[in-house]
């Protein structure tokens, strides 16, 4: 397709404004830590398992240890100094044993006078975890080299969501055999509000399957098998966003997931998670993704489910620019940015398809090196599954015409049920037909400069810049914009939301080996 001629000056200005608007967030993230960041650090150091005696044995040791440290010395310095001080001073042979003591209530934590030994030990322990993440990244590169990447863009991205990992696996394999390049396992509805990561293989999720290290492992192994069978590396996706973003990011790195849903704002807007908590967590989690070579998917598409896709199109652009600048700051490269947007315009709107093309081309033009995530219609899908199947076909065509990178396959039963096996199969047949019959139509697609599509794209970009100006002018920047309900017409105050009491301003001398190792500089 012949792209659009975007106004270079306007684009430069947009990026500069986005960086300014995001600055207060970066600042906040650099000066705080959270319970989840600290738990993630312990996970990197190899602490696993749950406390068998507490509750039904669902509470992970990492939670128990971090809570204990918080009680005894607070988290202003992070958990690493107290924990490895305890270990280096010989109260326990290893982390697991120390956790047992926490369980027994006998563990005692304190800040060391000389932090060096604790630092060293912590660095070594966490380094081992990062080494495993590095190894997984290398392994992925090998496998891609052996099996190969999908034959074309866009990559075909498909969701499984039975709630039972053992139903998910055959469905995921069937989907891969039927042509899916990326499999996403949706989480159980409630998980992102849990302040811990469940353990083990699970079969009881609602509208999704719990994200656990074991479920990750099982699914990745199953997909490695089909990858070999198909001679095509099939990627695995899960969701980071939520109260445990940093920990899930670590588990994803440890189990060689390939993509993660990770948005700087989704948890705030759609899960009512405390903004500060999310901003601190997203930065750490993105640093882990950067290290793991994982592609992130952002969630702008969600805005269009609560806000109108035509009126609020510019908020998607603004959010993409903000996600981009925050991702860069956390060390992610452009090829790792699956920025989100969606085909959510009411199909009853005249010219709806050409409007979609304009929006999709704008994103394509703004982020030429990012593998944009193209989301299917959901809001205006109804129980008319025939009409829905047609609409998904036009969504697929728009994806091909505008060179999208990751095509999330739409389901005709979107308005009815979580996808059935047959829905997924029919959806893939839809994609295959459109890509094979019309996949190269972009050669004949040439939106006229000054024409309907070009004008629309330009006006959305202009609105986006104006909105960014308003945001950047406020000293709280993005934080204030969210409080004002700028995105998805949802207002969230910095002091509200879930998990806010898990956020701590870091004191002088605070130490986190993971941040240190990942940034290469001491924090």
């Amino acid at each position, binding site marked *: 397709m012949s792209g659009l001629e975007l106004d270079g000056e306007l684009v430069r200005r947009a990026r500069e404004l986005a960086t300014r608007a995001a600055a207060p967030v970066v600042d906040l993230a650099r000066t705080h830590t959270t319970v989840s960041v600290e738990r993630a650090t312990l996970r990197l150091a190899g602490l696993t398992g749950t406390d068998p005696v507490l509750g039904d044995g669902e509470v992970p040791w990492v939670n128990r240890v971090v809570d204990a440290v918080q009680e005894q010395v607070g988290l202003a310095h992070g958990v690493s100094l107290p924990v490895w001080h305890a270990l280096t001073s010989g109260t326990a042979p290893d982390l697991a044993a120390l956790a047992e003591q926490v369980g027994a209530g006998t563990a005692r934590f304190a800040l060391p006078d000389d932090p060096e030994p604790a630092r060293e030990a912590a660095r070594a322990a966490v380094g081992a975890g990062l080494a495993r993440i590095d190894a997984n990244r290398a392994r992925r590169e090998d496998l891609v080299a052996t099996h190969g990447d999908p034959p074309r863009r866009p990559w075909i991205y498909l969701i499984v969501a039975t709630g039972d990992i053992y139903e998910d696996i055959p469905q995921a394999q069937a989907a891969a055999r039927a042509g899916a390049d990326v499999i996403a396992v949706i989480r159980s509805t409630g998980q992102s509000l849990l302040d811990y990561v469940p353990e083990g293989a699970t079969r009881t999720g*609602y*509208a999704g399957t719990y994200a656990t290290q074991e479920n990750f492992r099982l699914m990745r192994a199953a997909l490695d098998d089909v990858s070999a069978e198909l001679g095509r590396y099939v990627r695995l996706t899960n969701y980071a966003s939520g109260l445990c973003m940093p920990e899930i990011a670590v588990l994803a790195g440890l189990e060689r997931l390939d993509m993660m849903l990770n948005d700087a704002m989704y948890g705030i807007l759609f899960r009512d998670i405390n903004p500060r908590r999310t901003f601190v967590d997203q930065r750490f989690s993105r640093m882990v993704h950067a290290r793991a070579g994982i592609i992130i998917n952002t969630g702008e598409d969600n805005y269009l489910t*609560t806000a109108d896709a035509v009126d609020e199109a510019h908020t998607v652009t603004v959010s993409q620019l903000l996600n981009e600048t925050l991702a860069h700051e956390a060390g992610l490269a452009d090829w790792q940015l699956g920025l989100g947007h969606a085909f959510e315009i009411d*199909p009853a709107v005249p010219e709806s398809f050409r409007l979609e093309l304009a929006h999709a081309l704008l994103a394509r033009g703004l982020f030429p090196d990012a593998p944009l995530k193209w989301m299917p219609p959901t809001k205006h899908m*109804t129980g008319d599954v025939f009409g829905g199947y047609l609409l998904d076909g036009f969504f697929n065509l728009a994806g091909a015409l505008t060179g999208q990178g990751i095509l999330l396959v739409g389901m005709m039963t979107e308005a009815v049920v979580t996808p*059935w096996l047959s829905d997924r199969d029919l959806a893939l047949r839809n994609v295959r037909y459109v890509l094979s019959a019309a996949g190269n139509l972009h050669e004949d697609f040439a939106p006229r400069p000054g024409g309907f599509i070009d004008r629309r794209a330009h006006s959305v970009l202009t609105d986006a810049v104006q909105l960014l100006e308003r945001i950047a002018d406020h000293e709280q920047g993005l934080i204030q914009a969210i409080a004002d309900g700028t995105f998805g017409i949802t207002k969230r105050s910095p002091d509200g939301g879930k998990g806010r009491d898990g956020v701590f301003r870091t004191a002088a001398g605070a130490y986190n080996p993971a941040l240190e190792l990942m940034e290469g500089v001491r924090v």
Partner: protein
Amino acid sequence: MSDDSRGSIAASASERGADRGAESGRSTVSEGSVVRPYGDTTGDGMVQTSFTLPVPPGPKAEGAALQLAHKMGIEPAMVVHSHGIGEGFTFFVVYGSVRHLVDLDAVHVEERPYPLLSPSEVNAAVKARLRRSLVVLGACIGTDAHTVGIDAILNLKGFAGEKGLEYYRELQVANLGAQVSVPELVHAARARKADAVLVSQVVTQKDAHLRNTRELAGAFREAMGESRPLLVVGGPRFDPAMAAELGVDKVFGRGTTPGEVASYLVHALVPEEATP
């Protein structure tokens, strides 16, 4: 692609029960209250259906599909398409004529037992006959984060051209948003002396919406007994006929408009006569 259908249905107890088996004969014309599905000729009984069976494709699978079609009352049935999905599964499209007759007299439509009022009529009624504003509390319970539905009913913006309840002067509306736990909700209802609690449930997988609604009803009964507020639930997959079964006062289904809800509140909470 819009979905025109509205309003509340109740299939009569008898239909809800087991299949009464095959109706004999074929009514070639649908006289009066007995009708059959319509393909291109009155009385032809034509329907389309599709499903997946956990069997590999092949003659056996097609036979199994025909068997199911016959059990559904499709006779004769044509398997017009089938293809394998992965190993072990086959998807089918079946066309044919169902034996069953539809008895319209047996359909008990719960005619709305209250008039549809305009916002001003609602306000007037509350002001004149209740003599105080009506306190309405809204929320999505459990882990359901779908607020668009409840917002459509409550927020000023409203739905389908109708303004939401917040627009009504005499209604005091608080929207607690999503992911509110039932205990939190009970507590809030008590604290605010809510006259009505409106709850939305959109996720239905594994009947989550039914379970959550029963839990809601139970909790309020326990906590407040007779003095509990009016309980109203809604969501796209609710069958409005199930209110009693679920232990709530009223259930609204897909396509509900704010006006319908406001009118119901007046009907249920505002006395016929002005309170002295």
